[in-house]
């Protein structure tokens, strides 16, 4: 059902845990299936220097969380903000279609953690623009009907 890379991230997730002195922390919950992800970021001069996560969820949720932490480490906040679920699924070499929704969690957690960092530093929060599909992973071509229509 899952490819080898997904299984590797499932069985040996990278960057698990908490960062005691995180510069930003965020949590995402999936309304549809109850998955929960917490993400902790160390940020230096606009760059993510360290990252940890904790995830409650199925194999796809854990693997997506794990690879997302690898994808954003060393990236700027701007790059991390625009990491899409599509990027996460691609980096994993694909997920079964029925499981693609599990990867949305990572995108949401990253954005929540970045906004937490911005708030801690007195900066305005970024907003998830309509159509970027933070609650859905099938419409990254801009055709997203929006969360309210799902």
């Amino acid at each position: 059902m899952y490819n080898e890379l997904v299984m590797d991230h499932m069985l040996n997730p990278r960057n698990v845990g908490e960062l005691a002195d995180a510069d930003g922390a965020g949590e995402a919950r999936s309304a549809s299936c109850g998955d929960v992800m917490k993400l902790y970021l160390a940020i230096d001069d606009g760059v993510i220097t360290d990252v940890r996560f904790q995830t409650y969820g199925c194999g796809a949720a854990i693997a997506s969380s794990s690879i997302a932490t690898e994808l954003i480490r060393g990236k700027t906040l701007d790059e991390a903000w625009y990491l899409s679920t599509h990027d996460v699924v691609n980096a994993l070499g694909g997920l079964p279609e029925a499981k693609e929704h599990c990867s949305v969690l990572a995108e949401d957690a990253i954005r929540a953690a970045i906004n937490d960092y911005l708030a801690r530093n007195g900066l305005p929060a970024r907003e998830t623009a309509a159509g970027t599909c933070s609650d859905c992973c099938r419409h990254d071509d801009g055709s997203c009907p929006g969360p309210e229509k799902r």
Partner: protein
Amino acid sequence: MRAENERPVYMDHAATTPVRPEVFAAMVPYFSRFFGNPSSLYTFARESREAVEEARGRVAAAIGAEPAEIYFTAGGTESDNWAIKGASAAHRRGGGHIITSSVEHHAVLHTCQHLERQGFSVTYLPVDGYGRVDPGAVADAITDRTCLISVMSANNEIGTVQPVAELGKIAREHAIPFHTDAVQAIGSVPVDVDVMNVDLLSLSAHKFYGPKGIGALYIRNGTEIENLIHGGAQERKMRAGTENLPGIIGLGKAIELAAADIEGYTRRIGGMRDRLLAGILDAVPDVALNGHPEMRLANNLNISFRYVEGEAILLLLDAHGICVSTGSACSSGSGEMSHVLTAIGLAPEMARGAVRLTLGDANTDDDIDYVLDVLPRVIERLRSISPLAPPCGDREGT
């Protein structure tokens, strides 16, 4: 400790079982040697015909029925479909009303939902926290339009055994045909159609060490039922299609073996099951047994592990060569939880952490030791990843 991946530790006997060597041996001659079509008239086909009737006799004997009341089908799902669609159609009274339970197998539930779309009304009876149907609720649900009552003998997910004899008695008092899906019960609990007061009973060979693709429907003499599969005159014009000859032979042998050793089997398997449960409860905090502590199939454990998700447990156990199944599936994307675990009132977080382990002939005492070594470490590992789990030292029992 045995080496990992030496062989799979198979703990999913409720999904399917390995074919017993004696069963396989009995089937072999009927593939290429006695391959004749049981319906053919020449002498060569007589061996096939006689073997089918001998198998029919074995199935009948195993459940206290007459051979003429046994009809071979392609398995439990077909038997359930036939019983429910066929009996409902034959007994339809002004639209028709069916009573079933909310914890039935999908072969029953989805068939009932199909009939609802055809104009039938269906009562899905609730169950108690153990998954048991209240016979009083069945009696209360009966209307003058009720044309069929269908309640399973034992549940496939949590192993809860239903008070089938009582339910059947109520159905009989109201002259309503009573069907039971006994797919999980055969070989694990005594099944007798007269003791259980059933008119229709579904069974499937691959759940008791027979081959896949073969089952039977028991139809009590005098029970009105319409055909499901139309075509040739096989099975006394009740179920068309050339007989699955090797499958039928395998079913006959498997049910004979299963029915002959229910006591020994349940003692053997139940002993291992009880040791496994005690070991898990001892080693892992924040767990709960789903289903009834006693009124359950001897091979069944369904356990919820708080703070972790069932599929993740399954995958980690699989990496250690252990085969189990989950109580939930988020594969649909709708967060669809087991209808059985929902029906017994389990909180979503407990239902999502449910794992089913079903033991059987494939298991040894070493397997129990192995699972008791691996499973607690798997749960601990997943809890160390989970944001919901309290830190290790704060947890109850650690």
